[in-house]
């Protein structure tokens, strides 16, 4: 466009010179408005100031309760909400899916909590999120509620909801690793050393686990570390990962890859590829979660596979790492009493049987595991209970994601051969210490 051509009559009415300034200041004001809206600017508010849930309030609850969490693959969340609504009569519960994967659900939950949304009364939370969410003051303190229900909950599952001596959630269902093995080829695993030795004997005996660089590798590593008597943080929260036990376990795992106990392909496996590899029939042992039982039963291996709890470290004891999901009440819930009523229902011994029978999940009530109807649907319930009771939580810290990265990246470096055990242990300890010092 040629701006030098003769002006049209319209343009001769020149605008007052202050206009440009006015426009600029309007733009700045608008920008400031957006900025301040994003900032929030709340006063510091953490776990110390959190309100507490009243265990007695559930009895008089009414209204609607919205439970939010990950996609309901097994149907357990929606099923529980429906059964609760029917049984309660006064409170209606519904389940809202807010993420297709665990990571997505976490992002969605964090966004709602940061924005003080009242949309969700309850969140279904992964056991490793507890301390992070609690430290931010996002959850209702459930200590009294958990104390009231404690006699019907397996202690190890309750521990996953603990942060700074208070409980921030109630366990809903749990999860623990199991060993699946081919009864026709290999012996039942009694110790990790025996399992690895047996796996190296013949090409078709190999062991598959989750060795990709991700959270699953942290779990696989910690299961061995805990059974060897090692730990990442001690009771006081100090970093104690730089230990002989850590070195032993790392050497053991990397030797296993070199001598053929485990196939090098595990470096690319998360849960599903590990299961698929095992289903090919070319392996003797597989570490995976309980849901694999049902899937293996639908393959030609159905008659030849067995299930065992995680084995012990030679000279140590059997241990494991707890997975599973807790029910946390949002600090911004508008129906806390309804949320309490839902938790009361979900953790009853009777409903916990349905958790196992109808949805193949691991109950948090011990009696459910020896129930005849449960055993019929879940014949490995005894082994599963042994794994659950022996398992420990992952390191409890608001910076758990960073701690887990420090673990899986350095373990992966040793397994793939890019770092020595010594380098990896030192770096792991340094990185965990740095993570713990996060502002």
């Amino acid at each position, binding site marked *: 466009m040629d*701006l*030098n051509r*003769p*002006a049209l009559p*319209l*343009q*001769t009415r*020149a*605008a007052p010179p202050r*206009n*440009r300034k006015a*426009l600029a200041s*309007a*733009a700045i004001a*608008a*920008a400031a408005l*957006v*900025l301040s809206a*994003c900032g*929030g600017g*709340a*006063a*510091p*508010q*953490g776990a110390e100031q959190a309100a507490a849930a009243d265990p007695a309030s559930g009895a008089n609850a009414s209204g609607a309760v919205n439970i939010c969490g990950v996609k309901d693959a097994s149907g357990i969340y929606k099923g529980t909400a429906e059964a609760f609504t029917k049984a309660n009569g006064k409170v209606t519960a519904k389940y809202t899916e807010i993420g297709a994967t665990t*990571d997505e659900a976490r*992002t969605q939950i*964090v966004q709602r909590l940061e924005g003080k949304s009242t949309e969700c009364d309850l969140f279904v939370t992964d056991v490793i999120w507890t301390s*992070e969410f609690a*430290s*931010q*003051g*996002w959850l209702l303190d459930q200590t009294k509620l958990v104390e009231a229900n404690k006699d019907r909950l397996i202690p190890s599952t309750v521990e996953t909801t603990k942060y700074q001596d208070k409980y921030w959630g109630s366990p809903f269902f749990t999860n623990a690793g199991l060993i699946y093995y081919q009864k026709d080829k290999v012996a039942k695993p009694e110790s990790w050393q025996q399992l690895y030795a047996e796996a190296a004997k013949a090409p078709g005996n190999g062991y598959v686990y989750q060795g*990709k*660089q*991700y959270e699953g590798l942290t779990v696989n590593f910690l299961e061995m570390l805990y059974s060897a008597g090692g730990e990442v943080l001690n009771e006081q929260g100090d970093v104690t990962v730089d230990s002989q036990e850590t070195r032993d376990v790392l050497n053991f795992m990397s030797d296993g890859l070199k001598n053929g106990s485990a*196939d*090098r*392909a595990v*470096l*690319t496996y998360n849960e599903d*590829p590990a299961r*698929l*590899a095992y289903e*090919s029939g*070319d392996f003797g042992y597989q570490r995976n979660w309980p849901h694999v039982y049902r899937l293996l039963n639908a393959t030609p291996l159905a008659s030849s596979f067995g299930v065992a709890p995680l084995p012990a470290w030679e000279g140590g004891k059997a241990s494991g790492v707890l997975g599973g999901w807790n029910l946390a009440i949002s600090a911004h819930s508008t129906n806390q009493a309804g949320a309490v009523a839902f938790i009361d229902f979900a953790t009853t011994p009777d409903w916990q049987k349905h958790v196992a029978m109808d949805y193949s999940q691991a109950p948090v009530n011990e009696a459910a595991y020896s129930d005849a109807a449960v055993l019929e649907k879940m014949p490995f319930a005894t082994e599963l209970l042994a794994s659950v009771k022996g398992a420990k939580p992952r390191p409890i810290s*608001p*910076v758990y*994601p*960073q701690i887990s*990265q420090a673990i899986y990246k350095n373990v*992966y470096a040793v397994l*793939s051969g*890019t770092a020595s055990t010594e380098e990896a242990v030192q770096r792991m300890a340094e990185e965990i210490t740095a993570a713990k010092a*996060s*502002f």
Partner: protein
Amino acid sequence: MALKTLLPGRSPSVAPARPVSGRDRAERKLAFRMTAPSLVIMALVAAVPIGYAIWLSLNQYSVRTAGLSRFVGLDNYVAALTSNEWWAAFGQTFLFAGLSVSLELILGTAMALLLNLAFKGRAVLRTVVLLPYAIITVVSAITWQTMFQPNMGLVTNVLSTLGLPGGDVVWLGEHGYAMAVIVMADVWKTTPFAALIILAGLQVISAETYEAAELDGASKWQTFVNITLPLLRPAIVLAAIFRTMDALRVFDLPFVLTRGANGTESMSMLAYTQLRENRLVGEGSALSILTFLTVMVVSVIYVRFAGGNIRDVAKEEQ
């Protein structure tokens, strides 16, 4: 910067040689008033989020105590630029971008030349070659992951059946091999896009130019090197700009295929981990800004280079 060049009356093409008259000034004011609403909208949708991200990157936000933050100036940048992770990711991202973009341009040019030939079913084929580009990256990444799975993947199986090397390699578990798979997945997916842009460039080259060359007795190869390639350069550079900017921001392929293991962590993945997984908002924002600056510097270099090129071509045509 973007705003400044948008302001009317600042562009060199309208710089007046004679003194500015009152009428000019009035006209400029009007132009400013007329563009002001869109400028404000642009500021709100583009400048404000970027400004906010820069502000975030100058602070640290507590992951232990809710609502606590402190101003740290350039500390987050210093920490990023002195860390091994950043420089490793930087190098890996450029390696990925360099390899994938060059392959895409070579294959894209070849594909465009083929599609430009007159043959039966050309319209159908032009649609079909675009299919990989229409598939969501995460989905295609999962497909590639399955193909390269050890023992049972398609590629590994075919290679070992034929006795070729690579059949017993854990592709996604080894340095070098993992990068190769990611480059392959990207080339497979986005070559059609490059081909389409280059095809558009091919179609504006007039038939007369080729006729003249034929009359002068030029061989096919001479025609390609002396006519097609130079005239195609603007289109190729355009494809290169788009693809490079995309490749430098690569995230989904390494995220699905390797989770950043075996030398495949990209700059965007690093920023994502800090921002989303670790909720280190300040540190993560600094990494995002550094990624943004890197992409911007590279594209400015490209635009300079391409601009000169387009002018040259225009001159030659006159």
